[in-house]
């Protein structure tokens, strides 16, 4: 079964450079400083942000704030039931990647000796989980009012026979298809996260990078609208 049909459509009827529908809600969790729920098609992610607060002494940094991220997937998120929702190799790696990405997005120097906790829960995983988590976290951080360099947006992009396809679903995330997850700030050419799965030929690298960058910009448009609408709804004092 080919990933792109002869008429140029993918398995779920999208064009190669088309992203899935993005649905979001902000401010769901009452206890958290900021929270968000985000859907990329069937990929559903819930994210909550706590802090900045005076965190553990062991994690405290003198010049900037520490960011602690926990990525977990529900046991029923994938095709097979998972035994451990968190703590396995893959989840820890995802957590580390998110931490690193947001360490360069958040203005960490503004909160020395403090800590920000980010919790991401993948409720349903249908491809591009890491990208969805980055997007959800950006929105949750915006909801929490934590100063950032900009809203980070991410996208996963693969390449089939020289043609890039964006926003992969789990059926397209096969073992053989090389895919790159890229996260940029405000859709600009400022990469905060890059992760490659499977082998990618060097000639395809620039093609994939360009496609991923364009997709990040598209996703950023969606996220920016959501954040602005939420801000207007929450703070009528600001006018407009």
């Amino acid at each position, binding site marked *: 079964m080919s990933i792109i049909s002869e008429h140029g459509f993918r398995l779920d009827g999208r064009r190669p450079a088309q992203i899935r529908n993005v649905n979001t809600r902000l401010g769901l969790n009452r206890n958290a400083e900021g929270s968000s729920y985000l859907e990329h098609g069937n990929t559903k992610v819930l994210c909550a942000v706590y802090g900045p607060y005076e965190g553990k002494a062991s994690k405290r940094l003198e010049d900037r704030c520490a960011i602690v991220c926990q990525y977990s997937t529900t046991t029923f998120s994938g095709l097979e039931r998972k035994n451990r929702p968190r703590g396995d190799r893959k989840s820890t790696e995802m957590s*580390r990647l998110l931490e690193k990405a947001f360490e*360069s997005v958040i203005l960490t120097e503004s909160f020395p000796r403090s800590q920000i906790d980010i919790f991401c829960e993948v409720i349903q995983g249908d491809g591009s989980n890491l990208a969805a988590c980055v997007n959800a976290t950006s929105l949750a951080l915006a909801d929490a009012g934590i100063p950032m360099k900009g809203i980070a947006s991410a996208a996963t992009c693969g390449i089939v026979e020289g043609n890039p396809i964006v926003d992969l679903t789990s059926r397209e995330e096969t073992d053989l298809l090389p895919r790159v997850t890229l996260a940029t700030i405000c859709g600009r050419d400022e990469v905060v996260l890059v992760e490659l799965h499977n*082998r990618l*030929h*060097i000639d395809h*690298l620039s093609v994939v*990078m360009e496609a991923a960058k364009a997709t990040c910009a598209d996703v950023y448009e969606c996220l920016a609208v959501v954040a602005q609408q939420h801000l207007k709804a929450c703070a009528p004092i600001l006018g407009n």
Partner: protein
Amino acid sequence: MRVQPVTICEKALILEALRSGKRFDFRGLEEFREVKLVVGAEIGTAICTIGNTKVLAAVSAQIAEPSSMRPHKGVINIDVDLSPMANYANEHDRLGSRGMELIRLLELIIRDSRCIDVESLCIRAGKEIWKVRVDVRILDDDGSLLDCACLAAITALQHFKRPNVTLEPHHTLIYSEYEKAPVPLNIYHMPICTTIGLLDKGQMVVIDPTDKEAACLDGSIVVACNKRREVCALHQSTNLVLSTKQIERCVKLAMSRAEALTAVVSDVVKQDQRERSAFKRPDGFAITAPALILTAGTVAARKIVAPVVKNEPDVEQRAMYQPSIVLNENPLSVGSVKQEEVDNDASISEQVEMIQNSVGKVEVTETQKSSTISNRKREEKEVDDLLSGLDDDEEEVQTMTLGAEEPVQDVTMQEEEEEQPNLLLAKKKKKK
């Protein structure tokens, strides 16, 4: 021990040097350190040094049962040990965040890039597979740890040969290397890893940074490539913001490096094979140490004259002698027993005092330690006396029911009866 930060003045000095295109080890900014690659005398071992960084990798294989998910695929396990020997910032038996990153990237490069044919490691589907284990030991840490570890692991895997096996209907025969030639692993490609340090928002590239340089830089990007011009791993190692153009540039740099190092790895392995097939004894890791220091080999053999050995003592004597050894074997436990005894004596004497106080009548003239047993005896005697006296009193009560001085005697009896439970209580305490 915690990671010691680089001092501000040292950092400023290193950065100033880097910005003017100079480095403390006389390299250019885009120049790599010298790579030394040595395969060991043992099959499947390799040491790689990049500058001062030194990593040992050893590969071993054993037969195991496959997981139910992948019944016809072999398993490759990677184990990394970051001992405090390499860098005192490392903790013993604990991989910090650095270690976790290292092991995860090694797994990504060696396992997930599918450079080894795992299907060929299957012996009997669902029953027996080869489990290949790659042990990576960091011996010295001076930056570009991942490059070095990756190179050592790949070389060791190339060098490794698993024992040959044949399948019989009900069992598997494993041959030693003398019976049937061992089989090398099927390796499709060699991913070579390159660390590229970045400075000034990625404007400046510092290749192959040392430990100190890495601490001063903004961050680094790790790229793994192979000879076939494929990117196997791409990892933004520290928090820095880059443009896609810069990433592509780094990948190009890594690619040329990978091509050069792939040739080195295959050369080293091939030369070793040639030497082995010519029955030349492999040098192994001995050549990694400078020849001047190795002086043990030049010492002339001396004739050692052993002293005359006397006859062994009689069996009876030995039998008598042995128990004393056994007793003396555990001086610590003996000491502790003594301590307990002392404690016991102290507590007993304490209790005796208590009893004395409660009784009020007993007089002790001897020292406390020696009087413990006699005290107990005396107590028993006292109790007996009291009880007999009680019996007498009761008899008296019984006989003298209508006596004139009846109330007075009754009072004394009550007094004695009061004393009796006190004494019993004391005895109970003592027993405890």
